[in-house]
């Protein structure tokens, strides 16, 4: 496999490979970032599905005999100011936190595909208008707007929040997809499809979109990260129904009942880390996707030593080296790194 690194930040389009989706998947799982990210993600999905069953106590049950107890055999993560079991709250809180992130991610990604691909595919004022729309939504700061919206309707269900978060979160994906679509629309296979009279929807669905899967995936993951982060923040502020359990409301209660001041770290740290680790998993997944989109970034799998050796010998300058396998003398730095990777394996 020779990686063609000539076009920056555009996806390689290999005409000889019929199923970009399958190739995408097999390449993806080779990346350490992706493996780590997906592992974390799978653990969280498991907790979200079975958390309610695994929880040892009712998360709202107040046991006044066990107030602010540090972790013990009965309460693995201790208890709150009201004698509630922290572990149970954490387990029960997993599902709503993930649900809202994913619902918002799905809706936002759908919006960003329609608007982004549309803006890239249709030149002229329609495309410009869609592009302007996404740029406007990119600039408007989300949290102040969310605060205004949530204070006007404090009883809104989490589905309403998911939709609002999606509505505020699609713009970044749309902008990236627009750039990709503009690049793809000039490729020969798209021009050929146009010349043979294929309708626009068919070109978009079967020629352009399959080649944008990695970009759609990154923007989906980023939207989920943003939505979970914003929702947890809103819950922490006490703006969302604070009597339901999720990691944001846990942090709200811990903060408002002075968990840290009373040294109850077991109450405050777990929900924060729970949020941090799901977001970490998603961010790592995206690092992997970025490396897929831009092969130059693919340093994963290269041992540090091989990398260092390669860069010490030749810097980043291509140097003529005697190698029987390579027909041409000059080797590009990107190829050199990939070769180093293969040799290291």
């Amino acid at each position, binding site marked *: 496999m020779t990686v063609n690194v000539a076009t*920056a*930040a555009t996806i390689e389009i290999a005409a000889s490979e019929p199923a970009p989706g399958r190739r995408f998947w097999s390449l993806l799982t080779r990346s350490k970032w992706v493996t780590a990210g997906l592992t974390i993600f799978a653990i969280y999905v498991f907790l979200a599905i079975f958390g309610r069953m695994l929880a040892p106590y009712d998360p709202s049950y107040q046991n006044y005999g066990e107030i602010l107890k540090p972790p013990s055999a009965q309460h693995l993560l201790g208890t709150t100011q009201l004698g509630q079991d922290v572990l149970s709250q954490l387990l029960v809180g997993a599902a709503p936190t993930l649900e809202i992130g994913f619902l918002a991610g799905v809706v936002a990604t759908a919006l960003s595909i329609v608007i982004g691909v549309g803006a890239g595919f249709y030149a002229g004022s329609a495309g410009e208008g869609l592009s*302007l729309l996404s*740029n*406007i939504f*990119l*600039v*408007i*700061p*989300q*949290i*102040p*707007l969310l*605060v*205004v*919206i949530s*204070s*006007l*309707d404090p009883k809104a269900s989490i589905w309403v929040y998911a939709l609002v978060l999606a509505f505020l979160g699609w713009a*970044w994906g749309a902008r990236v997809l627009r750039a990709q679509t503009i690049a793809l629309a000039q490729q020969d296979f798209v021009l050929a499809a146009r010349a043979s009279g294929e309708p626009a929807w068919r070109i978009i669905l079967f020629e352009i979109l399959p080649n944008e899967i990695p970009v759609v995936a990154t923007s989906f993951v980023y939207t989920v*990260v*943003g939505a979970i982060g*914003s929702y*947890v*923040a809103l819950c*922490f*502020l006490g*703006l969302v129904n604070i009597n339901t359990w999720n990691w944001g409301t846990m*942090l709200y209660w811990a903060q408002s009942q002075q968990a*840290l001041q009373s040294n109850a770290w077991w109450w*405050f*740290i777990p929900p*924060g880390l729970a*949020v*941090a*680790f*799901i*977001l*970490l998993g998603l*961010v*790592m997944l995206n*690092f992997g996707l*970025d490396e897929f989109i*831009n092969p*130059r*970034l693919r*340093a994963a799998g*290269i041992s*540090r030593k*091989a*990398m*260092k050796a*390669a*860069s010490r010998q030749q810097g*980043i*300058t*291509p140097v003529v080296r005697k190698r029987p396998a390579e027909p041409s003398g000059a080797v590009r*730095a*990107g190829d050199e*790194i990939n070769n180093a990777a293969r040799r290291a394996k």
Partner: protein
Amino acid sequence: MSYLARRIGFYIVTAWAAVTINFFIPRLMPGSPVEIMIARLGQNGPVTPGMIHALETQFGNPKASLLSQYFSYWSQLFHGSLGISLTDYPESVGSVIGQALPWTIGLIGASVIIAFVLGTAIGAYSAWRRGSFLDGALPLSAFLQALPYFFLGLVVIEVFGERLGWFPTSGGYSQGLAPVLTPSFIGNAAQHAILPAFTIVVTSISGWMVGQRNLMITTLDQDYVLVAQAKGISQRRVMWMYAVRNAILPQFASFAVALGLVVSGSILVELVFSYPGIGSVLLNAVGNEDYSTMQGIFLIITLAVLAANFIADLVYVVLDPRARQEA
């Protein structure tokens, strides 16, 4: 300057969109802010017909058509009126925001500049020296990026403020000091800003870092970098004047996105540190159902973000000759 002209046009359209969103939100949501505000104002003092009229202009008047409401909303804005603050009755929302805004701009401005400079430098260097210990910074930065701002803020307060007692943990300056621009007051304020600024820098740095690293890796493969090295130009010069100089341009272009996120996060940081900025005012307003202040703040924050983006555009024009030549 057609590039700048286009950007200014974009900011005008965005400002119009923000005002329009602000106009429609209270009219589309189920709550009735006018009644709540009138009831709450009544607790503070007599409610004059003028005040009711102003509130209806802001939040919706069932008797007037939407279009005429929209125009009177704009005319009220052009007269500089954002309504009366409930939280600091009878001050106007404008003056409440005016007092808080310098704190926020100072804190976020300093943090964003520090995070940008540090993040760009580390990112550029880790791309330049791939395989060095800086590659380990990537997983670390992923973790920092994943930490919620407010959570890190609370941990920072507990560790550096309460346990170690190194820095003050709340407020913008020591109680009893008069907020005047003397060296001792500025020093005191700077000391109070260290922990919140540290929190914002730590959580926002990784975006700049990863961005610059990825751009830099792409740039390093360009022919002009190769030629520069072949010419025997010193490594440092190749890195900064050839690679970084070019790789940094898209960083300015993505400033808009980053700034929106930082501002949103900073609002939470201000709350956690009881910082006297606009975020704290916003959250007090939420507690008091003070819709005038909330909407005023959303508007002002959006305008401030637009202004900051415009500054980033100006820097971009200075750095990128292509933007200048389009004139």
